[in-house]
């Protein structure tokens, strides 16, 4: 919670939305598998996995509606091909395709103010610092 230019307001709103969508979809997917989160959530947290999945799916649809048409088109293109529409970039490597991406993209301080995608696999990227 320091420099004014590093607040969440500075992040591209569509990137924020895509990341939220990504996290919701991860949770949904994990609750689908019998050896995934469902048994743990049921046993320790008394969650009803089916009900939780329905709630998550509803929220995903709601957030998808808020994507700009261009972003939405790209999102819909990536979605069926890949588990993840937004992938982290860690130490310059895209975790969608495991290829190093141009350091100019990664080193930019305001990297989250723009919506960027991997030049190799096309996934939206989020640079993890």
């Amino acid at each position: 919670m320091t420099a004014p230019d590093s607040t969440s307001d500075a992040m591209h709103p569509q990137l924020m939305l895509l990341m939220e969508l990504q996290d919701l979809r991860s949770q949904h997917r994990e609750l689908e598998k019998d050896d995934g989160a469902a048994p743990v959530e049921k046993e320790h947290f008394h969650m009803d996995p089916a009900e939780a999945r329905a709630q998550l799916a509803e929220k995903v649809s709601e957030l998808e509606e808020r994507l700009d048409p261009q972003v939405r088109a790209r999102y819909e293109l990536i979605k069926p091909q890949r588990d993840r529409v937004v992938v982290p970039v860690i130490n310059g490597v895209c975790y969608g395709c495991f290829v190093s991406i141009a350091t100019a993209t990664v080193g930019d301080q305001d990297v989250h103010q723009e919506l960027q995608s991997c030049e190799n696999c096309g996934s939206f990227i989020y640079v993890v610092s």
Partner: protein
Amino acid sequence: MKLRKLFTADSVELNLQSETKDEVLKELIQLLGLDDKSEAILFKTLKRRENLGSTGIGKGIAIPHCRSLVVNELRLAYGRKPEGIDFQAIDEEPVHNLFLIVAPPLEVSNQYLPVLGKIAQFAKDPDIPAKLQEIDEAAEFLDLLEERAP
């Protein structure tokens, strides 16, 4: 994997200041030392998980958890609120011990769910809450994990 190895003294706070559920989630997130944007996203994701049902599992324990893009390895934090906080726990009792667990979307070693289960087991052990209340410094918390969750 040993739970002890997943915590550092920096990720332990024995006197949480927050008075509300949202504040306490943010205070726990801060123990992970992420940047502000990552903190904001993680907060939203944890809130969404809470909306599916409180992670306050009763007996004064809460285990907020999620997977999130903002971490690149499994991250844990522990916070204690001696006076208790309203976390909408399933038994409606105040929560004193909070364990935060955040995993990346994909992990090579798949530790997230086993660790989540292990933390829940540890925290539910009948004499653990009393022991957690007696702790004076982070190192003692780590020792307790070493001893009781080998």
